[in-house]
């Protein structure tokens, strides 16, 4: 019998996130089948990733509007004037690559 392999919370996290190679993942799965302590540690790391992603999507809608420096000349509010050399008029390049 080989010594019992121990897994860190980081290993379990990688397992939950599907970041492990198939072989390593299978080992953890086997260990989970035989080790109630490991199962309870894994349970303590479970989160609702879908809810997190969905909250992240909602956050995108809460973003402010993009600053005028990111808009094309025609899209900028009229009061905005080119201030200095750091914001040159953007034109399509006249020569191609």
């Amino acid at each position, binding site marked *: 019998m080989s010594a019992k392999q121990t897994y860190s919370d980081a290993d379990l*996290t990688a397992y939950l996130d599907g970041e492990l190679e198939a072989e390593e993942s299978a080992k953890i799965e086997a260990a989970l089948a035989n080790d109630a302590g490991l199962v309870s540690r894994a349970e303590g790391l479970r989160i609702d990733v879908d809810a997190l992603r969905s909250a992240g999507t909602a956050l995108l809608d809460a973003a402010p509007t993009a600053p005028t420096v990111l808009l094309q000349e025609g899209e900028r509010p009229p009061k905005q004037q080119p201030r200095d050399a750091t914001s040159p008029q953007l034109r399509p390049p006249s020569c191609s690559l």
Partner: protein
Amino acid sequence: MASDYSNASAIKSREEVRQGLNSLFPRLWRYCLALTGSRERADDLVQAACLRVLDKADRFQAGIGLDRWMFRLTQRLWLNELRSDAVRRGQGLLPVEKIDLPDQKSDPRANLFARQVLSEMLKLPEAQRVTVLLVYMEGYSYREASETLDIPVGTVMSRLSAARAKLNEALGEGKREAG
């Protein structure tokens, strides 16, 4: 001739970066929110970050993806230049404010839960917040997140496991989670 070429190509890449940044802006702002932990600081940081990214546009190489490149530049800008100012002004001590999230689903409980999840996520320490954002909200692999944050993959793993433990304790286990 060489200088004409590089000038034209600099303008071209600046224009490409500007357009890309314009469409990626909400994601950049969300990233700034995870970095700074507050809406006010995120709004400041994202403005500075846009200028920085445009300023460095001629160094952008398509290999890495504009999103990860702008995240890297923004993180450096925050860590090296802006965070210490924010902390000195005492903003770092402000409690995390609630962000008003638009409803995403018809189920009010799902929307409420999304707000709770976000509120708990924003309470995490900065290093964990930004890693959670990249892996669970952006959907990056551990490797992509490690390259973006310039940290080892093992650090990504330990940050995520610490974040998972805290979120699990605050929110209860994710019964509905698929994986």
